[in-house]
């Protein structure tokens, strides 16, 4: 029997998923009426006490909620009741804004560091100190100086996604093969043309790797940042639903965060594939 590896892996994935959902269902299912009690009292206590039901929603409830959100992702019924689609769109817009500013800053500076040993040495201590700072530690400073929670969140995304791109660009540019640069020199290419036609394509795979790491980090950080700044976004949604004690919505949101993160990563993987070259 010869079945393709992809198919076999898919089957195993499906099996694992089934086991997980099954265990989840059993773990959260009610045990039936536990104690006899006055119906009025039972109504007050809720299913958790009367049916022995777990406070954790089961897979069926979450599934129904996901379906509900998918059916109507963009409803807007006031500040605290917006569709998941709208919340995700806010988050993605913030991530892209901060991320694109980071691209615009990190790639030119990365080029500078990669091409100039002097600047590489000079900027190294700053990078080494700034890089390990948790992006959220910047939040109070950002709120104080920018005085706008939305822009502060974008700033936090900027600061967390700038480092992997900066370091990878500098590394990619610095490790462009000497022989390719020599070819550019013997062809009397101008520095600008060399940067554009030789260094950029040569370093592109490394730069894209940094960009892919950055978008992943940005998506991780946006949830935390939005929990702090509030108002809109998927992070705020999660925190709001926690305050509403709607674990079903929290789990639903977690799943959507995962799906969007995967989509962003796949997008970058596609770009990475486009600039890759076999040596």
């Amino acid at each position: 029997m010869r079945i393709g590896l992809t198919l076999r892996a898919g089957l195993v994935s499906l099996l694992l998923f089934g086991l997980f959902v099954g265990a989840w269902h059993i773990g959260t299912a009610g045990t039936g009426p536990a104690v006899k009690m006055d119906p009025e009292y039972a109504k007050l206590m809720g299913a958790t006490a009367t049916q022995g039901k777990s406070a954790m929603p089961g897979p069926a409830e979450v599934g129904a909620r996901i379906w509900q959100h998918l059916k109507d992702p963009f409803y807007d019924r006031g500040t605290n009741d917006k569709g998941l689609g709208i919340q995700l769109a806010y988050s993605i817009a913030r991530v892209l804004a901060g991320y694109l500013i980071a691209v615009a800053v990190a790639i030119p500076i990365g080029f500078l560091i990669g091409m100039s040993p002097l600047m590489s040495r000079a900027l190294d201590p700053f990078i080494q100190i700034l890089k390990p700072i948790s992006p959220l530690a910047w939040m109070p400073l950002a709120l104080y100086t920018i005085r706008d929670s939305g822009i502060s969140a974008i700033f936090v995304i900027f600061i967390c996604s700038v480092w992997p791109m900066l370091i990878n660009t500098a590394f990619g540019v610095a490790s462009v093969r000497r022989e390719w640069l020599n070819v550019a020199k013997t062809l009397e290419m101008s520095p600008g043309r060399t940067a554009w036609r030789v260094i950029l394509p040569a370093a592109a795979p490394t730069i894209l790797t940094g960009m892919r790491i950055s978008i992943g980090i940005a998506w991780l950080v946006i949830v935390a940042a939005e929990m702090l700044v509030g108002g809109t976004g998927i992070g705020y949604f999660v925190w709001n639903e926690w305050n509403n004690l709607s674990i079903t919505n929290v789990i639903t949101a977690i799943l959507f965060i995962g799906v969007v993160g995967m989509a962003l990563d796949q997008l970058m993987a596609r770009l990475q594939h486009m600039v890759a070259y076999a040596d």
Partner: protein
Amino acid sequence: MSKAFISVEGLTRRFPEPSGKAELTVFEDLWFGVEEGEFACVIGHSGCGKSTILNILAGLDAPTAGHIIAAGKHVQGPSLDRAVIFQGHALMPWLSALGNVELAVSSRHPGWSRAQIRAHAMKYLALVHLDGSELKKPAQLSGGMRQRVGIARALAIEPRMLLMDEPFSALDALTRGSLQDEVIAIRNATRQTVFMITHDVDEALLLADKILLMTNGPKAWVAEIVANTLPKERTRAELHKQPNYYPLRNHLIDFLVTRSRALALDPEARPSNRNPPVIRPTAAPPHAATSHHPQSAGQAPAPHLASARIAATQAAG
């Protein structure tokens, strides 16, 4: 006395030792010339600075002292007039064979249209028999084909001289042979001036008009210039049947195996005369190695080299 097309004058290159203040002198006070249309080969052991000479000539390295005049201009940096064929093909792996040649063509002719650049690049790819494979990336080409693209890229900028740094050393013997034939054909068609570095004695005898023999480094020098006394029209198949082949080959091997080291170890060996003597090994025994031999009349050497005496080097050998 007119100056040679490529005139190397008092060339010295020292590298700072990694450890301390002492400098490593790779070579010192080199003088030699290459005429226009001439094919010159440099042979010597690793570390004698062959590649450094080529890099300085290409403008990728600067001499510590002395200078090179190439085509009437002081070499002070890279130039499109001096095309380099690198040891490792040095093709851009993200560009196709055509893209690599086009990059060079568009550097030479910034004003040309896309179509013009493409047509010019294709002409040179066809010259090295790569039309049909022009859209392949270097990774999809064999070693020999990659080096062909390198040759096409160098020729496409129509340089005044071609500098080749052991271009075929990474190839297997069969591929090397076919590329050597290719080089012979191209040179017969263009009379391109070539300065080439090689380890391969047979390659030098097949391709070169004159062969510069360098002593071992450090402080290497050009011990002598061997004029190729084989007929102008030579093929790989016929090479070893030429009467002058073995005297020439033995002379070169003898130099590489024993004399290059012996000369380097003997501080007195280096003559004060700045021009290296010209040697013409031939099959005729007694006066074989004189520059006045009638057989060598067709191989007119550079005027200032013709008068060089060879007795001293023969004694040294």
